[in-house]
């Protein structure tokens, strides 16, 4: 009865430059927008829309699903094969729980811009551990500093057990430096290739000696005894540098600001960066002392962000696709494990990047099989379908698979998903036609006449068909 009244109240919107702009903003800053929000926000001044969007990032919640660091039984405890099996199982379950918790978070959290940026930083500071607790810690660092200061972000990330173990800084000691962390810090996290020398890597690795964590507390500690206190030559300067000094000297180069600006541009604007826009953003970032929030705001306030060549042309990552569907149709998962399975069959599971360079993105998401899975995803999730594609087990799950004596992970074929159709219908004005619904759900312009086959009798069936198109793969 209530739903019925509201349905009557929902007005039809008229497409305008303002609705175009809000829709585009939400396709990039968030994971899409629903009909009522688009209608409402297109009447508000854009600065106010942005104010509200940034304000909504203030109240956020951290992931807390992993409660303890599950440690491998030590040698002195003489663990049996069974003990190791139990440990492997618990650890795998915790890792999966953290993955599912984040995807659920992405699918529902109100601080959507912060979550979107967390996803950006997750790809930028790509990291893998076999430890769900460490994964969660690092993810919370990304979330906390997502809109904060980049210097703080880099230092905090560098001090997480996840990164310290992943890039072997735990083994970076005075007598035998390990260069892995120093190399990736410059190549992938702060500068890009060609802006430092091999000697810079060697010397800066020495500055990070002693940056370690304690497994029992899962906390960073500076191991003075392992730290190389000798003098180092870095970027042509000589001094008794510590890790923080190295990070500051890298930040001192404008290239660092340009590098981050370009990565953000590729994520939020276009796979092909415009050098003039990137330079402007980079200079601004540098002058703003590496504050992330004003930089993001500058992107969303610029005229070029809304230009036609930057609209509806980015291929959604599998996570963006999945989260977008979850948000548009308010999908509840009877078996949350399905979320991880879907990520695997789509080709992107969070916390399992292909390597430290992160996911390459763009057209690399698309091949014959992944595209088929993507096009069938809506009918799988929204029409109570089954999952046909198993995806591949992650290479790091091999130990678990070996002990579990299975050659494959079990496939939960029945997805058991529950979209809230009543709510979805309530969002729409009565008598909405396919062009109007397509306008809300799809970002590329749809050619008139190309949707003639789509059945208009029911908005739900119409929506399922609209999101099963190649156009829906773009944002």
């Amino acid at each position, binding site marked *: 009865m209530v739903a019925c009244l509201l349905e009557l109240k929902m007005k039809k919107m008229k497409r305008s430059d303002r609705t175009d702009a809000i829709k585009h903003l939400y396709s990039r800053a968030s994971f899409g927008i629903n009909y009522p929000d688009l209608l409402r926000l297109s009447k508000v001044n854009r600065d106010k829309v942005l104010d509200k969007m940034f304000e909504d990032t203030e109240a956020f919640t951290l992931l807390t699903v992993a409660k303890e660091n599950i440690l491998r039984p030590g040698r002195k405890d*003489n*663990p049996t*094969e069974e003990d190791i*099996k139990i440990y492997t199982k618990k650890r795998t379950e915790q890792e999966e729980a953290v993955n599912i918790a984040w995807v659920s978070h992405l699918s529902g959290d109100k601080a959507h811009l912060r979550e979107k940026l967390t996803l950006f930083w997750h790809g930028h500071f790509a990291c*893998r551990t076999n430890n769900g607790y460490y994964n969660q810690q690092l993810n919370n660092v990304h979330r906390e500093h997502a809109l904060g200061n980049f210097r703080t972000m880099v230092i905090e990330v560098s001090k997480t057990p996840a990164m310290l173990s992943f890039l072997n800084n735990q083994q970076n000691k005075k007598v035998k430096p390990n260069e892995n962390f120093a*190399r990736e810090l410059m190549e992938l996290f702060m500068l890009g290739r060609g802006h430092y020398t091999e000697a810079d890597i060697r010397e800066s690795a020495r500055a990070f000696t002693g940056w370690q964590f304690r497994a029992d507390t899962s906390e960073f500690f500076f191991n003075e005894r392992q730290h190389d206190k000798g003098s180092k030559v870095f970027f042509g300067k000589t001094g008794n540098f510590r890790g923080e000094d190295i990070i500051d000297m890298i930040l001192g180069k404008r290239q660092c600001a340009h590098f981050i600006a370009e990565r953000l541009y590729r994520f939020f604007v276009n*796979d092909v960066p415009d050098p003039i826009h990137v330079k402007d953003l980079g200079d601004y970032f540098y002058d703003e002392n590496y504050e992330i929030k004003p930089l993001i705001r500058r992107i969303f306030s610029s005229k070029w962000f809304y230009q036609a060549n930057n609209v509806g*042309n*980015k*291929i959604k990552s599998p996570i963006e696709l999945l989260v977008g569907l979850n948000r548009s149709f308010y999908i509840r998962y009877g078996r949350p494990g399905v979320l991880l399975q879907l990520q*695997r*069959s789509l*080709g992107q599971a969070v916390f*399992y990047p*292909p*390597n*430290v*360079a992160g996911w390459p993105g763009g*057209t*690399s998401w*698309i*091949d*014959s*099989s*992944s*595209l*088929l*899975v993507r*096009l*069938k995803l809506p*009918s799988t999730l929204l*029409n109570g*379908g*089954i999952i*046909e*594609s198993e*995806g*591949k087990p*992650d*290479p790091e799950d*091999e*130990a678990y*698979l*070996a*002990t579990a*004596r*299975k*050659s*494959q992970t079990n496939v939960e074929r029945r997805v058991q998903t529950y979209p809230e159709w009543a709510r979805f219908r309530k969002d729409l004005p009565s008598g909405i036609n396919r062009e109007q619904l397509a306008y809300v759900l799809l970002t590329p312009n749809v050619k008139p006449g*190309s949707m003639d086959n789509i*059945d208009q009798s029911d908005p739900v*069936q119409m929506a*399922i*068909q609209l999101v*099963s*198109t*190649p*156009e829906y*793969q*773009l944002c």
Partner: protein
Amino acid sequence: MRSSALASGAFLVPSFLKPLEALAFDQLTGHKNLVIIQLSGGNDGLNTVVPFGMDTYYQKRPGIALPPSDIIRLNDLQGLNPNMVALKEIYDQGWMSVINSVGYPNPDRSHFRSMDIWQTASNADEYLSTGWVGRYLDSNCQECKDPYAAIEVDDSLSLALKGSWKKGIAVKDPASLFKNTREPFFKEVIQAGDEHLHEDNLGYLYKTMIETYSSAAYIQNTSKTYRSTAEYPQTKFANQLKTAAKFINSGLSTRVYYVSLSGFDTHTGQIGQQGRLLNTFSEGVASFLKDLKAAGSLDDTLVMAFSEFGRRVEQNASNGTDHGTANNVFVFGGKLKKAGIYNEAPDLVNLDNGDLKYKVDFREVYATLLDKWLNVNNQQVLNKKYSGLSFI
């Protein structure tokens, strides 16, 4: 998508799709196939090709070393795990070669990174976003222009088969791929497709759909003409190989097939688990090779089996082994130039921090396959010229 409620439309095959499907048996004679088998998890090479003639092997592995009497002897030093008895006959026929101590400099002991290195053929400190078979497709050779030039017999595509411009196709079952691409909504999109074939991302999506549509038909229509009478064991792995044999024997103009077998990460209770997997592997491969022999295609087929790393020489406390480095690679085929054990047995004494030192860079193996089997200059694919080996 059994309960799909998607509406149907008209079913016309656009005319521009037809030339691709018209291709068939013309290139068949002398067509060479490469089958790559990935053993995931880090197969323990020392309990696969067992150095039973070395005392060190028994000293370092008191709980898991295989007794000399059980070994299928290949020479005085090395022999096969008893679970690999199905390969004895294959070995004796001269269809099998074992390359010892294959690896790469600065080995990485994490599964995903080392697998990434093997699939992209990168250096240990380099990150590539394309796979080596994918770059072979990108090289635009005459035989690799169609998407089905490389088929992974699975339902998703590995990085190994993804190039910058071209990608292979994953086909677990040709009939269901065909069925999937003939669903009404897929057809409707294809029909609208020619209007969208621009150089942008939307154009790329349409192009991929059209190629999938077309390839699915070609693969299904070609492979259904062949009926195999060969017997295979009832395992998922053998089934993958059976599908690959069907493709090869029906004359599909595919050059590279990719299959995998998972579960080799044997940190605990290794004997049983690895034994089962090696049995699955050996029986599957032996059936596959015999099937190809019977159909007359063994001489035109080469099989290469690898794992992302071997395991440490010394066993661990749980009767298992931990991640190591260099490992053996198997090559199978009817026309091997050097069958049997290709090079000297691994040195179990001079170790690198408890691990085997590699003697053959895995990219030398790839280079050999590229130059001598797929007829493409290996430098084009591997970004550096490798001199290659002489097993073919």
